Structures are given as structure tokens and as C-alpha cells.
């Protein structure tokens, strides 16, 4: 589905990264595979280091920390927030919405909208599109798109498929109306028939958590996890990304009448380094225009990898310059989406460590 917006802008992005760094070299012994076989994957997949929260830290902790930092840094006024959109798959509780928890903890005004959205790898785009739509309302001037996940807490440390790459993080993206009329083109696709490619099978209402669902088992390939852990069918996800993402980007560029070579950066979700390199090759985009360094240095933090990509790789450039960028996220759902827009002249664009 193609979508078109006008008069919207990103006016700032802050990434919140846990201080705890987990290194793959230290974890390799946790996996039931020969060490040399595991280490061969290190450079290909980008198994290096990732940021994980300490036990007990939740999504609202990361978000409250980040918003308080923005207020303390003079980048955000508390009473100016008209909506919070939290995109997460690791809420603090089933109920109430974690966005309401964040509102309450910060003491924000009552005359606002708080909304949780259950999305993952494509969550940055989904959040932005919802923010663009909310800004149709004249009383809504400033929307905070919060992407946050702490999925390391739901990933088995003995699962080499997922744990070496999983990362925790949060981001705060401020979206407002802009004075210009530069179009923003977007595309969203979903395929729920492939919903089992990425899931946490137990712990919800369909399969409630019980002592049996907590039992750690070998999945037959040497990875050990319980039914309450995140599970990914790597082959299916890889095939899906390689089949669906390149044509989506080419179609978006055609829709926007913008050749790929006119795009300054392709800021994509980063499931692993190998996949990003294969996407760059397929689209014939230089690796330096499609950075793949987030997953190997911070981990795959689901919908947060793209804002982390922006703050780490563009940083101050997003404040000083204007750039044409293509965002693309793909994963759980399955969902894949992309946005082609101008960013820049932001009020801020930086990362902080969660202490």
C-alpha cells in the first residue's frame, strides 16, 4: 500500500542505549556448538557486542530516562507533548498500556493521547506513519514516537540463532508539522499468514505461562530455549527479506519519482550484517550508503535499530544538513515498510547511555 504525506517533519531523535555491553567472545561458550564453528560466524553475521538491560529494567524505564534527559537538556518542554505513541513488543504489563505508565511517571498533562502499538522490526515506520496521521488534528502539535524493546529478557542465552544479535534500546523521535510542502512517500505491506516465522509462543492468553512452558529444550538443531522465549525461523525470515524488500524499495523510489542514486542514505533495520550487505548488493547501493554497523556494535533492538542508526551514523549531520533518506523495516508480523523523506535541520540528534 502506497501512502503519501505532506507538511510533516522529524524535529529530533534521541537514542537511549543500556550501558551493559555483552560481548560475543564471552558468550560463545554458552552455545552447544563447537566454538570454532560459532566463531566462524562472527564476522559474517556481525556477532560482536550488543547492549542489554540489567535484570528488571523495563521499557518504561528507558523511555522515562530518555524523556527526562531531553527535558533536562532543554530540548523538550513537558507540557508541549500532545501524544505518545509507544511501539513495543515488550510492554511492562499486559495492562495498562505502557504509554500510560510513561505519562503517569513523568506527570504529563491529561489532555493528550497515549497509545501502545504492538509492532517490531518495522515499528519505526509504523510509528512515524501514525504520528503523521495524528498531526491532521489541529490540537496535536507535537507527537513523541517512542520505539523501545527489552527483548533480551525474552531470549534464551543458549540460543545462538537469536541471542548474539538481540539488543535492547529505546528512542524518542519528535514529529511535528513542518512549514514546507515536501512530500513524504511511504509503503506498508503485511502478511499474517507467515506470523510464526518470528514469535514468542507462550506467555499470552493463547498459551499461558506454566511450569511446562518454562522448560528449556533443545530445538533439534542445538539451540536451547523454552516456549516463553523468542524464536525465529532464520531461513524463512531471510528468504522473506530477500524476496520482498528490494522490490518494495524500487517501487517506493518509482512512486516518489526519485532514482536510488539520489538518495543519500538507506537507513534500514539491521537483523544481521550479512542480510544488510545482501540487500545493498541487490539494490546496487554502496555499503557506505547503507550502514550495517549498528547490529554488530549495539545489537538488533527491533524497531529501535533505525533511530539508533540515525543518531550513531548521522548524529550532528542531521542537525546541520538536509538529507534524503530511505527508512526500511522488516520482520515480525510479517511486516515490511519503507519511507522516503527528507530529514535534517533537526533540533537534536544524539545517543545517551542508560544508567
Amino acid at each position, binding site marked *: 500500500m502506497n501512502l503519501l504525506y505532506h507538511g510533516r517533519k522529524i524535529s529530533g531523535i534521541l537514542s537511549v542505549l543500556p550501558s551493559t555491553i555483552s560481548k560475543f567472545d564471552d558468550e560463545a561458550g554458552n552455545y552447544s556448538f563447537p566454538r570454532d*564453528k560459532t566463531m*566462524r*560466524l562472527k564476522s*559474517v*553475521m556481525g556477532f560482536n557486542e550488543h547492549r542489554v538491560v540489567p535484570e528488571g529494567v523495563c521499557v518504561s524505564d528507558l523511555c522515562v530516562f530518555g524523556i527526562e534527559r531531553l527535558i533536562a537538556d532543554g530540548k523538550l518542554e513537558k507540557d508541549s507533548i500532545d501524544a505518545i505513541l509507544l511501539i513495543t513488543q515488550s510492554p511492562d504489563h499486559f495492562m495498562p498500556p505502557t504509554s500510560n505508565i510513561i505519562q503517569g511517571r513523568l506527570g504529563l498533562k491529561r489532555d493528550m493521547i497515549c497509545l501502545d502499538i504492538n509492532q517490531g522490526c518495522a515499528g519505526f515506520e509504523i510509528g512515524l506513519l501514525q504520528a503523521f496521521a495524528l498531526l491532521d488534528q489541529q490540537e496535536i502539535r507535537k507527537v513523541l514516537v517512542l520505539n523501545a524493546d527489552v527483548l533480551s529478557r525474552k531470549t534464551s542465552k543458549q540460543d*545462538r*540463532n537469536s541471542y548474539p544479535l538481540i539488543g535492547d534500546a529505546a528512542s524518542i523521535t519528535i514529529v511535528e508539522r513542518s512549514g514546507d510542502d515536501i512530500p513524504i512517500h511511504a509503503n506498508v505491506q503485511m502478511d499474517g499468514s507467515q506470523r510464526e516465522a518470528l514469535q514468542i509462543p507462550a506467555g499470552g492468553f493463547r498459551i499461558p505461562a506454566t511450569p511446562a512452558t518454562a522448560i528449556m529444550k533443545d530445538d533439534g*538443531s542445538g539451540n536451547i530455549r523454552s516456549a516463553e522465549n523468542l524464536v525465529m525461523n*532464520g*531461513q524463512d525470515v*531471510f*528468504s522473506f*527479506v*530477500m*524476496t520482498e524488500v528490494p522490490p518494495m524499495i524500487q517501487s517506493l523510489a518509482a512512486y516518489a519519482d526519485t532514482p536510488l542514486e539520489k538518495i543519500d542514505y538507506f537507513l534500514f533495520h539491521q537483523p544481521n550484517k*550479512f*542480510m544488510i550487505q*545482501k*540487500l545493498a*548488493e*541487490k539494490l546496487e547501493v554502496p555499503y557506505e550508503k547503507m550502514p550495517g554497523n549498528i547490529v554488530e556494535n549495539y545489537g538488533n533492538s527491533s524497531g529501535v535499530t533505525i533511530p539508533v542508526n540515525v543518531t550513531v551514523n548521522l548524529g550532528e549531520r542531521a542537525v546541520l544538513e538536509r538529507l534524503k533518506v530511505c527508512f526500511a523495516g522488516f520482520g515480525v508480523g510479517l511486516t515490511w515498510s519503507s519511507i522516503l523523506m527528507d530529514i535534517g535541520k533537526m533540533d537534536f540528534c544524539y545517543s545517551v547511555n542508560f544508567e
Partner: protein
Amino acid sequence: MKNIAEILNSIRPEFDFNNSKDFIKEGMLDSFDLITLVAAIEEAFGIKIDGRDIVPENFNSLAAIEALASRSGRKK
């Protein structure tokens, strides 16, 4: 330069690839092995394998892998 059989043996030395009818069905290569294999073949032959071709059926036999490498630009 290693040939593909040698690369396979270096990745899974515990298996005899000459006596297998289907590397995938017999559990000799998992999805991470495919990625390791692709990276090794690309490096050995200076080619790039299209991501859409990284599917199990292109890796179930030595002949299939040889055909994939040739399609991807490996010179005979």
C-alpha cells in the same frame, strides 16, 4: 584456491558429503552453515551470490552448489 567440496569439508568436517543424497534433508547443513558457505564461496571465487538464491534447494548437493556458483559468475 579451495574448491567447493573442500570448503564444505572445512565447514562440517564431521560429515562425508560424497555419500549424501541431500545435504539439507540429512541435516548436514543448517541455515548458519549456508551463510558461512556463501561467504566462503564468495571470497574464494570473487563472486556475489544473490540473496534470493540463498535457499535450501540450492545447497542440497554438490552439483546444486556448483551450479549456483556458476550462475553467480564463477569462471570454470
